[in-house]
């Protein structure tokens, strides 16, 4: 029971970090970013390479920074050009980015599977309820919570956070008030991509890295952000946690439906609340 709840918490935490990147980018650019899974994968690979040559913490930092830089680049080169275009058009562009990244990963790292060990400090187990539980999984919960809190605090309480939220809703009004919207784009997309990358490297120690890993999580991260109400962090947080628990308990109690659980949850939420848990009506 307790262990299961904990399993759900771990899973939910990872989903949250992943989805919050998507939420950031969607919030500002109104882009459903199909390359988000690819960014996650790239984060895992880049972090992996640094982690094997240096150390895991350095790998985490590198994944965050590298992906952040890629996000900035994406915004400057792509999203900004497309910002006046219909969001659907940008979807194809992000799909293009996904293909490029997949090819890049395939060329640099090949098609084989890689795996990475958690750092020694975090690799043991602790006894919880009489059963061993991997320390690394607890670390994920902690790291995600810290990231969630930092992000929420920044957006809610800082001036730049306010500007980001304003620019997300109506860039022309934000600009009219003096916000340099041209700088906000790269900042937000960079941050969003960095979150994708971080979730990739955080997940790496219990996953196999392969060029298909991105597409597996892409849909899940969509689901989380839609259940939460697109563009809403608190919503994404609640829905990630909810999904974690549903997944943990659902696979035990209704194994037949395991693969549909996220979609069932989403359908139920959307039918009763089309704007998602914390989303505002359009």
């Amino acid at each position, binding site marked *: 029971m307790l262990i299961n709840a904990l399993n759900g918490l771990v899973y939910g935490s990872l989903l949250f970090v992943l989805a919050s990147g998507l939420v950031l980018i969607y919030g500002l650019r109104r882009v459903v970013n199909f390359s988000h899974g690819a960014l996650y994968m790239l984060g895992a690979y880049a972090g992996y390479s640094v982690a094997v040559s240096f150390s895991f913490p350095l790998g985490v930092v590198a994944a965050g920074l590298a992906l952040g830089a890629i996000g900035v680049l994406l915004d400057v080169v792509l999203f900004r050009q497309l910002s006046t275009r219909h969001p659907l058009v940008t979807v194809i562009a992000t799909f293009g980015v996904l293909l490029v990244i997949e090819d890049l990963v395939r060329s640099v790292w090949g098609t084989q599977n890689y795996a990475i060990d958690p750092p020694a400090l975090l690799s043991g187990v602790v006894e919880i309820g009489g059963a061993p539980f991997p320390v690394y999984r607890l670390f994920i919960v902690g790291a995600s919570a810290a990231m969630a809190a930092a992000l929420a605090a920044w957006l809610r309480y800082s001036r730049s956070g306010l500007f980001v*939220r304003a620019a997300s809703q*109506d860039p022309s*009004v934000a600009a*009219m*008030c003096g916000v340099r919207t041209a700088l906000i784009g790269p900042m937000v997309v960079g941050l969003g991509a960095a979150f994708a990358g971080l979730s990739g490297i955080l997940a790496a120690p219990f996953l196999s890295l392969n060029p298909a890993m991105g597409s597996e999580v892409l849909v899940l991260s969509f689901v989380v952000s839609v259940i939460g109400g697109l563009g809403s962090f608190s919503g994404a947080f609640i829905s990630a946690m909810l999904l974690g628990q549903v997944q943990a308990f659902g696979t035990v109690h209704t194994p037949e439906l395991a693969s549909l659980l996220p979609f069932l949850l989403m359908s139920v939420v959307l039918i009763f609340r089309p704007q998602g848990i914390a989303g505002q009506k359009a």
Partner: protein
Amino acid sequence: MTALLEFDAVNAYYGAAHILHGVSLKVDEGERVAVLGRNGVGKTTIVNTLLALATMRGGAIRMRGAALPRVAGHTAAMHGIAVVPQGRKILPNLSIEENLKLGAALRRPGRWDLDAVYALFPVLRERRHTPGTALSGGQQQMLAVGRALMANPDLLILDEPSEGLAPVIVDELAGVLRDLAGTGVAILLIEQHLRLVRDLSERFYVISKGAVSATGVMKDVDQKTLQASIMR
């Protein structure tokens, strides 16, 4: 004296549609100027050109004598201009207080802050944590005015600020704007509400079909003549 803001033979477009045909107008420091005209003649487009929401091709916009090399969305704000846009443009997912804080994005010093705006429109204080659009139409208009005041501008541009306001609030607004002008803030007022316009402005421009068709000093014309020149 160089003008604070000057439009010099500005031509502006939405896409391929040519809307402003060589509009020239200016606002001096501390001056109160009105822009009048029927629906659809291009009044809002003048503001939109300044905000880079319409495309300028030909002509120049000058701030304090210097031509702006490129107009971007935040240019006006950087030069101390605040705008109360037509249709209010309140951000729905920000609270009322956050909408106001956004107005102060550039942190220009001055006498307008949250407290001053709340004192002016007490209903905003009462509802300060609710989302911006959970307000009635007129309340949103107050918020839009408050947000512009928060910028402590040198020039305040108001695009039909009286729309949706109850008559007594229009009176109050007139009072505020008069006070503001008294402190040296220039005002460019686009308005249909002639009483407010006459009350407030020193000079006027009449726009028709995307060009200035008449201009003059407010106290030299009576209401009838003014109305006739707009309707022409």
